[in-house]
C-alpha cells in the first residue's frame, strides 16, 4: 500500500484537519506517514493545502507532485491540480463548493455534496469529515476507528462535543462513496 493524498481548499474548510487526522490515524496503525501543510498568511479564506503520504515502505520524498488521490474543496484547486493526478487516480470533489467539471477521463471522479450533507446532519463544519469518510472508504488507507480515536487529538478541547456528529459524518461519507465503489467494481 502506498497512497499519496493531496487535499486542497480554502482556510476554514478543514483541509489541514483532514490531513492531520489521516496522519495521526496512520501513525497509530504503525504505518509510514508524512504530512506537509502549505498555507498562506491569511487567517481565513487563503489557500490551505496539505499532502499526506501513507505507505508500507519508508517514505523518501514527503513532497507530492503526482497524487494518487486528490481532494478539491474549491474551483481553483480543481483547476490547479486536476492535471497532476496519476493515471487511474481518484479525484474527490466537494460539489457543494465546486461547480466546474473534471475534464480528465482517465481518472475516477467522486462527487460529494459535502456541505449539504453536513448541514443535514446538523452542522456544516463537519463537511470535511463527510469527505474524509468517503476517502477512507475508497482507499482503505486507514481504519475508520483509528480516525475516530485521532479526532480527540486534533479537535480543540472546546469542540470535543463535536465528536459524535463527526462520527456520523464519516459514516455518511463512507455510505456515499460505497455507491461509487460498487459501480467501479461492476465496470471492471
Amino acid at each position, binding site marked *: 500500500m502506498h497512497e499519496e493524498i493531496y487535499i486542497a481548499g480554502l482556510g476554514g474548510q478543514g483541509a489541514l484537519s483532514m490531513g492531520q487526522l489521516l496522519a495521526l490515524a496512520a*501513525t497509530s496503525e504503525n504505518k509510514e*506517514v*508524512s504530512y*506537509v*501543510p*502549505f498555507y498562506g498568511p491569511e487567517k481565513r479564506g487563503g489557500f490551505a493545502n496539505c499532502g499526506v503520504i501513507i505507505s508500507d515502505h519508508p517514505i*523518501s520524498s*514527503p*513532497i507530492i*507532485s503526482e497524487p494518487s488521490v486528490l481532494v478539491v474543496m474549491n474551483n481553483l484547486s480543481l483547476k490547479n491540480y486536476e492535471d497532476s493526478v496519476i493515471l487511474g487516480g481518484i479525484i474527490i470533489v466537494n460539489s457543494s463548493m465546486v461547480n466546474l467539471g473534471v475534464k480528465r477521463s482517465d481518472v475516477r471522479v467522486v462527487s460529494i455534496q459535502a456541505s449539504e450533507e453536513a448541514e443535514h446532519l446538523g452542522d456544516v463544519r463537519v463537511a470535511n469529515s463527510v469527505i474524509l469518510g468517503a476517502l477512507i472508504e475508497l482507499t482503505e488507507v486507514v481504519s475508520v476507528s483509528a480516525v475516530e480515536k485521532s479526532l480527540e487529538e486534533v479537535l480543540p478541547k472546546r469542540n470535543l462535543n463535536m465528536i459524535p456528529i463527526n462520527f456520523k459524518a464519516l459514516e455518511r461519507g463512507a455510505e456515499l462513496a460505497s455507491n461509487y465503489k460498487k459501480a467501479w467494481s461492476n465496470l471492471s
Partner: protein
Amino acid sequence: MKGNDAIGEGAILAGCRHFFGYPITPQSEVTHYLAKRLPEVGGLFMQAESELASINLVFGAACAGARVMTASSGPGISLMQEGLSFLAGSELPCVLVNIMRGGPGLGNIGPSQADYFQATKGGGHGDYHTIVLAPNSVQEILDMMKKAFDMSDMYRMPVMVMADGIMGQMMEPVVINEEKSVEIPPRPWATIGRDYHENRNEINSLFVVLEEMEEVNLRLLHKYEEIHAKETLCEEYMLDDAEVALVAFGTVSRICRAVVDKAREQGIRAGLIRPITLWPFPHDVISRIAKSAQCFLAVEMNMGQMFEDVEIGAKGRAPVYHYGRLGGMVPLAKDILEELKKVSKRRGTGR
C-alpha cells in the same frame, strides 16, 4: 510530531532550560511549544519584545552558563546577526534555529533555503563561523538538538540548526529516546560572581590591542580547522557507480533521494550527496566523488548558494550544475529528473 515541536522537545531532552524568542511563521510553533513545555520541566521561557532582545538575552544567559537557545526565521535571524557576531567573538555556547522562509526582505512564509550564505559564511561582521546543521526528517531534528548543544559546549561557539519551512511544518512519526540524565559540561569561565570562582571571570569581544585581537582570531581559526577535520557530516547514497551526483540538503535531499531511485529505474546511474553539516561543508567528499562522477547537480531552494561550495570541492575536476526553485517554491521530483537527464548529456560548467 511536527518538526517545530521536535525542535522544542529535542532541546528539552538535551537539557536546555532557557529560551528567549519571538514568534514568526514558519517557526512560531517552536516558541508555542516551549512556552508550554519549559515551565513544566522547571525551565524559563521568555517572549522578548524583538529578535534583537532575544539574541541579547541569549548572550546574557550564555555568560551565566545556561544551556540556552533561540529560534526564528530569516527576517528575525537577520536582526540577530550583530548579537551572533558578539557571541562568536566572546566564544559563548548557544543554539540558534532558523526555519527558513521565502525572501529577500519580508518575503513570504513559503519554504526556502536562501539563508545558506548568511548561515555558513559568518552572517554578522568579523571573521567567524557558526556550525550549521541541516536535518532532513523530524526524527533527525529531534536527535540533532542534543548534538547541537553538545558541539556548542565543546567548542564554545554558537551552533545553528537550519531547516526550511517544510521541515518545521511537516509531521512524521518519531521515537523519543529519553536519556536518564543529561551531562552538561562544567563552565569554569561563566560570569556568575566571585562567590563561585577564585579569579574574576571576564567575557568580552573588545580587544583594542591589535596583537591581542589577532591572537583571538588565530584561536578561532585553529578551532575552526579542528571542527572541519573532526565534525564534518555527510550522507552518501548510491554513489559508487554514479555518473551524475546530486547534491542537496534538508527537504530537497528527501526529494532528490526519490529522484535517484526513479533515475536508476530508468537506467540512469544517479547518486546523492547530502551534507548534514553545511559548515563545515564536506568538500572532501565532493573532491572524492569528482574523480568518479561525470558531473554534479546541486539542487536547492535558492539561486545557487551551496552550489559554490560544491564547486570549491569539485576543484574543476567535474562540472557543477545548479537547479533551483526560488521565492518559497519547492522543486518537484519530475522537474529535477528532467534536469538530471539534461545535465547527464551536457559538458562544461554553468547553472
